[in-house]
């Protein structure tokens, strides 16, 4: 594929940081009009490689060869000028500015007087928006765009720079299935006109839909490369992890006990008339499309956002939860969808683990440091959190280990029910199975877990029962062993939407 001279060759790229060889002679080529998937666990070196390609880092050795010519990208702008651009997972836009300015920023067309030629700017932008399938008015601000629209806008921006290679970094992480289809359609169109893509994703299924070739990184080395026709998911997972994961999910067979949480007719912003019950020893999944109201429901139960009506009972007693602290006092915890909403980045791992349960290591407001250190250390061990010490700022840990710290926080607190929103988003395969094992263990210890996830295999694999939400309502419940992707999807999709917009 890709003709005699590839569009891009990253040749024997190596890069070290103090104490770690992030990339070791990695070689990746991308042909013209080709989509190459780059996969690997977190820390495998994908982002380092992409940062080198985008001029954020400089390689220690190796070359970037573009169209047969060796180039160097001292800054992201230099990369952009040479037609290499990057679309981030959650694009950063200048929200209060107009869409035209966001797309053309850096090279707005000028009139002879040196002022911005708005007529021309909007016309150019309109044409670019058309190419990426966005029906938006260039004059309006970028404020109300969905994440999907922002990503497409970034692609438009890349096209404005005549980009010939676009890096898509986890583009589908927050997209609905329909939006994913739209994105893939655009990618295919652009591909036909000669634009190449490097596609980074944890969703292996997507790779088979969109990419022609796939390169696997592990511990800074390229361990495999294949055309998608000549590989399969299981093989890729083995190559990424370096071992066969076998069954990803722990066996079920948990025994439910008495109810912990009963929700009756709960209504708030984004969800209506939701009733359900969670018992001890259960993992209850909540499935649904993005925007179906799952997170809103969770935050409503937790007191993080106000509810309008409905009743909540905890351990059979009516409960008034108006603030997260009320929920926590009743033994309910919520782990936010966006991990950054749960982390105190500059603070030590031990602060992050112990911050919700000061009563365990303080008296009269005074902290007993030794007791606190002991707790932190114990749970770092029990949850297998990989950190050089309890004093390490949590921002230096990998996503999986950060997530385990947040989980540890609530286990330390001793809560009975954990509402776990997107527990494994952006986490590598190895850490995922550890999280699954911990969730299973919690249920077996007589606690309960509500698991909200957009990854259908995860909901099905983990849950004893699956609640399905559709446009703010509970559209049904499926028993865990009877649940299939089809049965859940049938409930999750709005009745007037054709089922082709299926989960990735």
């Amino acid at each position, binding site marked *: 594929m890709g003709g005699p001279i590839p569009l891009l060759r990253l040749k024997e790229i190596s890069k070290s940081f*103090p*104490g*770690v060889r992030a990339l070791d002679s990695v070689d990746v080529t991308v042909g013209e009009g080709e989509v190459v998937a780059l996969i690997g666990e977190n*820390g495998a070196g994908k982002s380092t490689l992409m940062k080198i390609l985008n001029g954020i880092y400089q390689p220690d050795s190796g070359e970037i060869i573009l169209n047969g010519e060796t180039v160097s990208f001292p800054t992201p702008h230099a990369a952009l000028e040479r037609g290499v651009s990057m679309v981030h997972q959650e694009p950063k836009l200048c929200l209060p500015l107009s869409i035209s300015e966001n797309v053309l920023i850096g090279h707005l067309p000028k009139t002879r007087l040196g002022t911005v030629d708005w007529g021309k700017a909007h016309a150019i932008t309109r044409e670019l928006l058309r190419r990426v399938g966005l029906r938006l008015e260039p004059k309006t601000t970028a404020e109300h765009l969905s994440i999907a629209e922002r990503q497409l806008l970034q692609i438009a921006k890349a096209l404005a720079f005549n980009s010939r290679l676009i890096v898509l970094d986890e583009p589908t992480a927050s997209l609905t299935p329909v939006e994913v289809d739209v994105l893939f359609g655009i990618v295919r169109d652009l591909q036909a006109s000669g634009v190449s893509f490097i596609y980074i994703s944890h969703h292996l299924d997507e790779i088979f839909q969109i990419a022609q070739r796939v390169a696997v990184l592990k511990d800074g080395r390229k361990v495999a490369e294949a055309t998608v026709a000549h590989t399969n998911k299981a093989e890729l997972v083995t190559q990424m992890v370096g071992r066969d994961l076998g069954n990803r999910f722990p066996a079920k067979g948990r025994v439910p006990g008495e109810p912990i949480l009963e929700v009756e007719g709960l209504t708030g912003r984004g969800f209506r008339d939701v009733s359900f019950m969670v018992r001890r020893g259960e993992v209850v999944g909540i499935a649904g499309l993005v925007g179906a109201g799952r997170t809103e429901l969770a935050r409503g139960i*937790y007191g*993080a956002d106000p509810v309008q009506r409905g009743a909540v009972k905890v351990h059979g007693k009516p409960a008034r939860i108006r603030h*997260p*602290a009320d*929920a*926590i*006092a009743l033994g309910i915890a*919520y782990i*936010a969808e966006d991990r*950054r*909403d*749960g*982390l*105190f*980045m*500059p*603070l030590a791992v031990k*602060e992050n683990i112990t*911050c*919700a349960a*000061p009563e365990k290591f*303080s008296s009269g*407001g*005074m*902290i007993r*440091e030794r007791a606190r250190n002991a707790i932190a*250390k*114990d*749970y*770092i*061990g*029990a*949850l*297998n959190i*990989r*950190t*050089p*010490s309890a004093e*390490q700022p949590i921002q*230096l840990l990998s996503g999986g280990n950060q997530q385990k710290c947040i989980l540890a*926080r609530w*286990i330390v607190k001793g809560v009975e029910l954990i509402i776990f929103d997107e527990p494994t988003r952006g986490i590598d395969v190895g850490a995922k199975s550890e999280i699954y094992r*911990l969730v299973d*263990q*919690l249920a*077996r*210890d007589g606690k309960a877990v509500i698991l909200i996830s957009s990854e259908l295999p995860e909901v099905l694999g983990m849950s004893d029962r699956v609640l399905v939400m559709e446009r703010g309502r509970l559209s049904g419940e499926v028993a865990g062993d009877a649940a299939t992707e089809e049965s859940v999807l049938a409930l999750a999709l709005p009745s007037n939407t054709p089922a082709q917009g299926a989960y990735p």
Partner: protein
Amino acid sequence: MTQHIQPAKSSGPDLAPSSKMGAQTGASSINWTRFLVQYSNVLALIVILVVASLLSPYFLSTRNIFNVLRGATMVGIVAIGMTYVILNRGIDLSVGSLVGLSAALTASFADYGIGIAASIGLVSGLVLGLANGLMITKLRLQPFIATLGMMIFARGLVFVYTNGSNIVVDKPTDAFTWLGSAYIGPVPVPVVVFVLIWALCALVLRYTVFGREIFAVGANEEAARLSGINVDRNKIRVYCISGVLAAFAGVIMASRLTVGEPNGGTLFELDAIAATLIGGTTFDGGVGSVHGTVLGVLILAFLSNVLNLLNISPYSQMLLKGVIIVLAVVVSEWRKRK
């Protein structure tokens, strides 16, 4: 049968620190750049002290040193409160005015004895600090805006109360002037008081739940809320403490000068912010310490002392101070990246 997720006492094979994080750069040699960046403010203070003692024989005299320290205590106390606020990801622009208000009140009630006079001053700081906290939490105002309003309002109060002229304490008693002017051995009382406040505030920050919550709220307010921390209460307390410490500085000012000046404490807020930043506390919240701030206070105080001894005009001194503040923040950004 089921193994609970609880720390087993013999927790299996010990976790080897991940090789990625444990390793060091050059095996045995110290990384000098890193060392310089890490301890830049300590080094800066040492350099100032050494240079000063070489340039001026008078500099190292006990008398000069304690004079400088005494001069630094008022801004120093305000800066410690400011550190709490900035760690909490806020800002308190009103402290200078609160110093002035407290000093004016304390001076005007001097006849009732220092106890009552000082209490009235401190209560004024507490009440207006509380008002800051309530505006920020209940009215959801940005700290900058709320405390800017308070800065102007409180300064207005001082002018209205003093009618724009000095309130002079007639025949100040020894008890009244003790706090600002007396000595314990060779050490001025305000210096002793400053050290006590420093120690107390550092201990609170390090060893109380309240202190750790200041960091948590500053580092990530939403995460703090979702962790069950009472964010509003935490912030209100922080602004109250800032207000009371500012008022305390005002009490010392009244005791020292035996005058309540309508302009007392003007620009203290900026000196306090500068000292806090030089001390490595960042506007991003959750990073910094009271010790750093004290270092910042000392650097600014000794620097201007040296420049005075060298007969450099106050105007030129400002040029240098401005550069140093910006430089300090640049260095603390480097430190973050290391």
